[in-house]
């Protein structure tokens, strides 16, 4: 089995190396064949491992010793349990779909091989992240996915917006990583190891330890650690206030928006916190923070999605909001529910993105929904699959998103952690907003009168099979993935992986009321979330199908609110003024005054000038005239004699 574990990440790495270094030599076709075959192999191995894990065969072992320092041994190794295995299947599965889809989407792009190399490299990095059995390798994967994300957002490097977006994404993520690394540092310092199993087993008696970061202020050690780790999660999983990079990341090609910025990489933070559940459970403060941050992100990002006109940006803000849902679940100690939503979201959001990509191809890379409309009849497969994704996203009973989202709302409802009331309000009201923006997208794109120019309209057609096949393949789990809610949440699926303390265990309480998926669907019709979703869909229909003049009127009436949402609460403007301009100004100041004027000007060149000045004076005594020297000699003799006469 150990060789199989190694095969899972190494196969895509090999693909990335082949396509990256020899892509030009082996050509377009062999580049995609090689990478796809290797990712498929990785998926196959992941499924085998998944089945093996279901039979109770978990694994925790090291591959090689990375480094030793002092008494500490840093290792690279794998931890294979149900959480890892689930992530492995999701990552390789979505990755394979995206690889296939890319053949169609990137057709004719000069960077074709490079793109395949990058997405395979991403798959490798993401697998290293989820399969890690220690914090160091986690950080490696964490930064490596950040690197690939940087490379892919800037894939079309001649576009100024793309290279701006990728720099921004990397730097904002680095702010998160800054906290994350300090968290890892505290773990290493206090636990003496970075190995998950050892750290988690000592978490109990570390819970009484406190730490003084600010002298005189004693804080609980685990709270500080968890908060620092969560800063990392906020960067990677784009939680408020570190969310600003994700909407801009849409500058990258659509397949990677689906793979990286929706389905997998951005969920790394969620995965990490779930993995760290044995630590987070000891800190109510940390959980409470997670809840509130998640709640803010859920509601406020969803609201922005309502006013976006770029089809990809709608989906991007939707992703932010859905990540908020997952974060809320984490804060409510419902880690398994968060992972469950992570899984269903990976499928329906990847589908939504790839569908949007299919639309964009048909529209000749036009992304503005105001220029679309009526696409239903031209692209039936894209429409049908996206419709399924929209239903799942809106949380219509029976579809995957319904089960996971409902479970989150329920979990928060039960939670007694401070902040849960606020988060409950956020997640509940977002149900309406989600249904509204999702179906706004559907209506504006697929229904009504076509609004594109005649040239585009004449060339409208369904995308090629390499594009539609992945859509169909993803539509299946978009429907069925939710049906596994029983065994995944209420069985003992995550029993040995996720640790929840009894007083936080909302999932167990939900389990008592659980009566199977049909019971859940039936019950939905008498609960608020269902009617909120219906109201959202109805509102979307009303505004964008029935009274199409109304949105403009509403925009006029609610002017300031609309502007606030349209400008995304002015957070980008604030950051670019405060951090980008601020650090540049500080940099200039330090350089021009500190280095050039003070150190170099005053001290260095100043001492050179002082020497020169002294030398010009001293030089005058060396005139070379005998009578000058004779005169100074006489003066000297006179002074010496006077001293001798008067003092002795």
């Amino acid at each position, binding site marked *: 089995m150990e060789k199989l574990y190694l095969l899972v990440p190494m196969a895509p790495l090999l693909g990335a190396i082949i396509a990256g270094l020899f892509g030009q030599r082996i050509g377009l076709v062999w580049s995609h064949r090689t990478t796809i075959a290797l990712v498929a192999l990785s998926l196959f191995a992941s499924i085998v491992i998944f089945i093996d894990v279901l039979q109770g065969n978990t694994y925790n072992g090291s591959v090689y010793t990375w480094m030793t320092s*002092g008494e500490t041994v840093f290792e690279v190794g794998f931890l294979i349990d149900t959480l890892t295995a689930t992530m492995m299947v999701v990552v390789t599965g979505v990755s394979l779909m995206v690889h296939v889809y890319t053949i169609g989407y990137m057709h004719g792009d000069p960077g074709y091989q490079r793109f395949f190399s990058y997405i395979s490299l991403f798959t490798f990095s993401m697998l290293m992240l989820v399969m890690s059995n220690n914090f160091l390798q986690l950080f490696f994967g964490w930064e490596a996915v950040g690197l690939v994300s940087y490379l892919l957002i800037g894939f079309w490097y*001649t576009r100024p917006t793309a290279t701006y977006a990728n*720099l921004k994404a*990397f730097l904002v993520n680095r702010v998160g990583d800054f906290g994350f*690394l300090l968290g890892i*540092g505290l773990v290493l310092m206090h636990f003496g190891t970075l190995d998950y199993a050892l750290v988690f087993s000592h978490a109990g008696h570390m819970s009484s330890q406190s730490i003084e970061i600010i002298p005189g202020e004693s804080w609980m050690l685990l709270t500080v650690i968890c908060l620092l780790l969560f800063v990392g999660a906020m960067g990677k999983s784009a939680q408020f206030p570190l969310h600003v990079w994700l909407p801009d990341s849409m500058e990258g090609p659509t397949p990677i928006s689906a793979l990286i910025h929706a389905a997998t990489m951005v969920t790394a933070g969620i995965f990490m916190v779930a993995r760290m559940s044995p630590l987070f459970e000891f800190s109510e403060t940390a959980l409470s923070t997670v809840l509130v941050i998640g709640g803010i992100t859920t509601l406020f990002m969803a609201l922005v999605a309502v006013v976006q006109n770029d089809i990809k940006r709608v989906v991007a803000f939707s992703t932010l909001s859905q990540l908020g849902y997952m974060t809320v679940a984490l804060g409510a100690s419902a880690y398994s529910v968060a992972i469950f939503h992570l899984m269903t979201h990976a499928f329906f959001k990847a589908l939504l993105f790839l569908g949007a990509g299919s639309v964009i191809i048909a529209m000749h890379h036009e992304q503005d929904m105001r220029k679309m409309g009526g696409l239903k009849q031209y692209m039936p497969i894209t429409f049908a699959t996206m419709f399924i994704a929209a239903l799942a996203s809106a949380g219509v009973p029976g579809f995957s998103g319904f089960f996971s989202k409902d479970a989150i709302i329920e979990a928060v409802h039960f939670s007694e952690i401070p902040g849960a009331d606020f988060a409950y309000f956020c997640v509940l009201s977002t149900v309406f907003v989600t249904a509204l923006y999702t179906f706004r997208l559907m209506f504006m794109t697929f229904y009504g009168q076509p609004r594109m120019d005649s040239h585009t309209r004449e060339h409208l057609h369904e995308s090629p099979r390499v594009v539609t096949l992945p859509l169909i393949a993803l539509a299946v789990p978009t429907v069925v993935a939710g049906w596994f809610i029983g065994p995944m949440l209420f069985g003992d699926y995550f029993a040995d992986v996720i640790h929840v303390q009894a007083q936080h265990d909302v999932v167990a309480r939900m389990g008592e009321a659980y009566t199977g998926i049909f019971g859940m669907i039936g019950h939905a019709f008498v609960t608020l979330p269902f009617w909120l979703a219906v109201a959202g869909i109805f509102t979307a229909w009303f505004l964008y199908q029935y009274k199409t003049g109304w949105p403009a009127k509403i925009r006029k009436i609610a002017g300031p609110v609309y502007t606030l949402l349209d400008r995304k609460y002015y957070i980008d403007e604030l950051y670019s003024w405060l951090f980008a301009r601020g650090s540049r100004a*500080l940099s200039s100041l330090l350089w021009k005054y500190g280095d050039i004027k003070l*150190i170099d000007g005053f001290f260095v060149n100043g001492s050179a000038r002082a020497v020169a000045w002294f030398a010009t004076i001293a030089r005058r005594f060396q005139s070379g005239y005998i009578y000058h020297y004779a005169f100074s000699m006489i003066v000297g003799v006179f002074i010496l004699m006077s001293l001798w006469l008067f003092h002795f």
Partner: protein
Amino acid sequence: MLFGFPLLSLIIWLPIIFGLVVLVMGDRNLKVTRWLSLVGAVAGFLVALPLYGGFDSSVSTMQFTERSVWFERLNVFYDLGVDGISMPLILLNCFTTPLVVIAGWEVIRERVSQYMGAFLIMSGIVNGVFASLDAVLFYTFWEASLIPMFIIIGVWGGPNRVYAAIKFFLYTLLGSLLMLVALIYLYQTSEGSFSILDYHQLPIPMTAQILIFIAFMLAFAVKVPMWPVHTWLPDAHVEAPTGGSVVLAAILLKLGGYGFLRFSLPITPDASQELAWLLILLSLVAVVYIGLVALMQQDMKKLIAYSSVSHMGFVTLGFFLFNAYGLEGAMVQMISHGFISGAMFLCVGVLYDRMHSRQISDYGGVVNKMPVFAAFFMLFAMANAGLPGTSGFVGEFMVIMGSIEVNFWYAFFAALTLIFGAAYTLWMYKRVIFGAVANQKVEGLQDISRREFSILAILALAVLLLGIYPLPLTEVMHVTVDNLLEHIARSKL
């Protein structure tokens, strides 16, 4: 000695002899001169390899020792030996020399033999600094290393080379003279010994320790360079030819770091502990302040020079944490910085040779014309930003882990490099490499030649290998570092 063979002498004198031969050959036949230089440099690297192979990493004593009388009356010996600290540095130096020779292959057209000769001779001298166990021998090599670099900057440098060369020379000389005073004091107190290892055991009262520490510190801090005595470095780098910058950043800065480990810490351990706060403070200022200053640089070489100072801040920070993470991390950082800064300067050199400009604003969209180069530059930029999987991460990670044990805020400020390092490196990369072709000159760029490819590929491998598997490097220095830590913990009053 290895089986009675004076290996260290060979490592020191072989490049010097080759350098002298190259000098004598002159520029009559450039092809022969160049090939002979390359043979000398590669031979210098090959003879250094047995140092690693034959090194016994289980003992902390000096190995491959050689000892013969030099000046009998003054008790000066030709005394050589290496331990886990100096051995990797010698290897780094011998590794860099062939790269520098190849880098200057076609670019240097005037006084080729003198250029190549200077680098070969300097390589031998630097090996001498790292291998000397006698203070006089050390000091001789130490000062001698200034001369070739002074000439390299002054002869093959840019328009303002004379100012830069003199600034470089005076700055470093000023520091070194105080070291000489300290060495003479130690010679007196040890009753006539110039053996550095004797000094390690010598009891010294506190006041004297503090004074000696400060004298050494000035010498080494200028070399590293630490804030605020760093301003010679950007000027020297900007004016130096590419090869000069590579050696300056990759090797000469390490002399300062090495000095702290060989002299300051073991000779004056109590003063080191007493003044650690000052050194840590200066190091953190280097990391944060210089990291910020690097952001707004308009000249690529200046930017990388400032980045160098900022990264070397991790080295001095690691030294004065007095724990294994810090010390070993600082060592790893020195080696890794040798690869990365060398590679970064080579990358700028590649661009400069084509465009004759180092101004960031003259570039833009280079990737369109030089995709292979852009890929290499990306790797080194990421390594410079400390990405895990590259060597740049290992040292920084270890030093941050070491500093959090001492004080959370040390780690906090040190870890800011995660943000600043990425900001200044990638912002420069974006402006130079990405975008549409900016002007006619960029339009005419040719991608890297096979010669340039080979140097960058070797460095890329080194950067990745050390990042993915640093164990072989940390393994050889464990015992030496542990021994040094124990030594520092013992009072010498």
